[in-house]
Every structure is written in C-alpha cells, then in structure tokens.
C-alpha cells in the first residue's frame, strides 16, 4: 500500500481543496455482516457439488432437510379415484357448451326476423309512404311516378314485402305487361322484327360482355 501521507501529498498538488476536506465513509452495513459472511459463502460453496435436492438442502440448512415433507392439507376421501371420471364429465359438458353459440345464433335470427316484421308492419301502416295496403301490385306500379325518387323507393319496399301470390298475379302474361317483357322472346323466336330489335339493343355491347352475361345466366 502507498502511505496515506504519500497519497495526501499527491492530492494536495492535484486538488488542494479536496485534500483539505476531512471525509468519512458514508455507507452503512448491517451489524455482524462480516462475521456472518464466511459462513454464508461456505454454505453456498457446499451446495455447488450437490447433485440432489436433498444434498442441496442438507448443505444449506440441516434443519430444513430433516423436516418431514408430509403435507398438512387434506383432500376428500376417494378424491383422486373419482378425479378421472369427474374430468371426463367436465369434458362432455364442455362439448355441450360448444353448441351453445348455434342455439344462440338461431334465437338471434328469430329475434331479428321479428324485429324486421314489426318494422315492416309499422312502415306498411304508417303515413310516410304512398302505397295503400289494399292496392294491387299492378295499381301500385301504375301509380308510381318513375321520375320521383321517393315514389320509386316506396315501390322498392312494397315489392319486397308483398306476398308471393300477389307478385305471381302481377307477372302473369296479360295485355298490359306482354309488351314490356316480349322483346327477348320475339328475338328468340327468330321473327324479323325481334331480330332487328335485338341487333339494336346489342349494338353497343362487346363480345366479352355478352359472354359474361351468358355465363352468368347459364343460357
């Protein structure tokens, strides 16, 4: 070791103010720390070669290693014998739980349909639309001003909720509607007028668009 005097002289040259200061050690240590440390380290070292938990416990604490390892807790009689069966039951009930969302989903669909029906009913009997529930489909269609957006929306809703029978009655071939839907039928029949009309209709349509149409309509 260098002498304190030697270090003090060196410090006086480098930092004279620091050399003048009387400085004590500020850190504290627990009582008896250095007395106990060799034993603590010896205990740690004795565990280094331990191959089993028992050897390690003996090295760390002979008292701990000699304590009985019996658990003080108790379990109901036959608990472990019945455990496999109980576990299987749990598994089965867990299977039923998996089905729950389907039943729940069905119930939700029913509820949704009911709500839609109520909304439709309210709409049908409310005064916010121009279609009377007593009108036939043909009358409603005839009454609809095709340039009036609100009227067209009313018709759209009406067609959605009207019964199948009424719709069937409307689309039955009749003198009024035959002209509207006959163009393609005439063309298909090979009549000259129909062929001309079809040619005019298809004039601006490309071959690709036609192929797409045929593929979609399975003709």
């Amino acid at each position: 070791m260098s002498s304190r005097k030697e270090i003090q002289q060196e410090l006086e040259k480098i930092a004279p103010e620091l050399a003048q200061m009387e400085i004590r050690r500020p850190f504290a240590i627990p009582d008896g720390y250095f007395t106990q440390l060799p034993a603590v380290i010896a205990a740690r070292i004795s565990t280094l070669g331990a191959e089993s938990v028992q050897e390690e416990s003996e090295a760390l604490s002979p008292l701990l290693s000699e304590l009985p390892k019996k658990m003080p807790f108790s379990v109901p009689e036959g608990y472990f014998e019945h455990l496999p069966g109980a576990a299987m039951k749990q598994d089965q009930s867990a299977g039923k739980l998996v089905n729950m969302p389907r039943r729940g989903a069905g119930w939700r669909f029913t509820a949704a349909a009911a709500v839609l029906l109520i909304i439709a009913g309210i709409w049908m009997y409310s005064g916010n639309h121009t279609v009377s529930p007593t009108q036939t489909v043909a009358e409603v269609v005839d009454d609809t001003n095709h340039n009036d957006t609100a009227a067209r929306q009313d018709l759209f809703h009406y067609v959605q909720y009207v019964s199948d029978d009424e719709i069937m009655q409307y689309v039955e071939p009749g003198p009024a509607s035959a002209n509207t839907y006959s163009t393609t039928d005439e063309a298909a029949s090979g009549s000259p007028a129909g062929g001309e009309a079809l040619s005019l209709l298809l004039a601006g349509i490309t071959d690709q668009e036609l192929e797409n149409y045929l593929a979609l309509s399975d003709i």
Partner: protein
Amino acid sequence: MVNELRIKVLHQYGLYYISSQNGLMGEMDDAALLAQFRAEHSKEAGFSGIVRKYQEKLYWHIRRMVIDHDDADDVLQNVFIKVWKGLDGFREDARLFTWLYRIATNESLGFLEQRKKKQAIPLSEAGELTASLKADKQFDAGKLEWKLQMAISQLPEKQRLVFNMRYFDEMPYQQISEILNTSEGALKASYHHAAKKIEDFILNH
C-alpha cells in the same frame, strides 16, 4: 507486544503474525493460506482464511462501485464462489490480492452492465448511481461524504475505479496497474482528472 512463545505456537499451526494492529491471532500470509487450501484436509479452512482476510477490502471496493449493500453482497458472494472454483488453477506469478481485486472489479462492472440492460427506462450510468445514492436511507445531500460520493458517481467508469482504489484503498499505482491492466502513466492521468472533477463538483454543489 506479542511474545515469541505465542508466535512459535502460531507457526506450528501454519499461522503467521503479520501486524500488531490486527491483534495476537494476526492473519496468515497469502502463501500460507494457499498452502492450506491446497492440502486436501485443510482446503476449507484455507479458503475460509482467504475470505476472512479479504472480505472487507473486497466488499468496500465493490460497494463503492455498485452503491447498494444488497447488490454489493450479491457481487461479493459471487466473487468468492468464483475464487473457490478458480483457486486450484491460480498461479502465483500474480499476487493473490491482485487476482482477487481483478475478479471483484470484473464482477462489479459485469453487474453494472447487467443492471443497465434490465432498466425499463435506460438511464446513464451516472444517473443510475446517483439514484442508488439517493435511495440510501442515510443519504444526506448536505453532508460532505455524500457530496463526495455524488461527485464520484459522475465520473466515467475507469476514472471512478482508479480514484476509489487510490484515494480510499491507498493502493500504489503499480498494483492498480496489475489489476486494471493499464499503464501507470495512464492511471496517474485518470486519477488527476478524477480528483480535479471531484473538487470542482464539491465546490460548485
């Protein structure tokens, strides 16, 4: 004054009286401790002698680096575990004291490095050490000894090591040089810079 008969008895048991400051039992010198360690029947006694002889010096060397007692305790125990594992291979071309200090220094620096990596919010090393100082129950920013520690915590790692070893452990440069594997000239420069910075810090805070 220790009488010669007592010294003779001590010698019979491999004990060597070293310093009157340490009392009658004295301390075994390093060579005797190593010889005791190497003999199978006295291996543990020899090691225990080494622990007793160097524990305080190494503890304070580590504590000044890591600040917190529990951290210093962990590091010190790890140092002695490494010593136990490596002492068989220790060659006496280096002094035992130097070898122990080198292990303690490396363990302390390794610990600080690990602590830095574990920080959720990375702090500078100075910031971490300052926080550790302030966390000490005894901390009193108005007291000179704590101001000195605050000043040391602001130093770069190498300067901190050199200052501690020279100022507190009163080591000759040649010994610090062996431990840190640095030239004496570089160590003198480090100590010079450290001392000036510490003086400035204390005078300005």
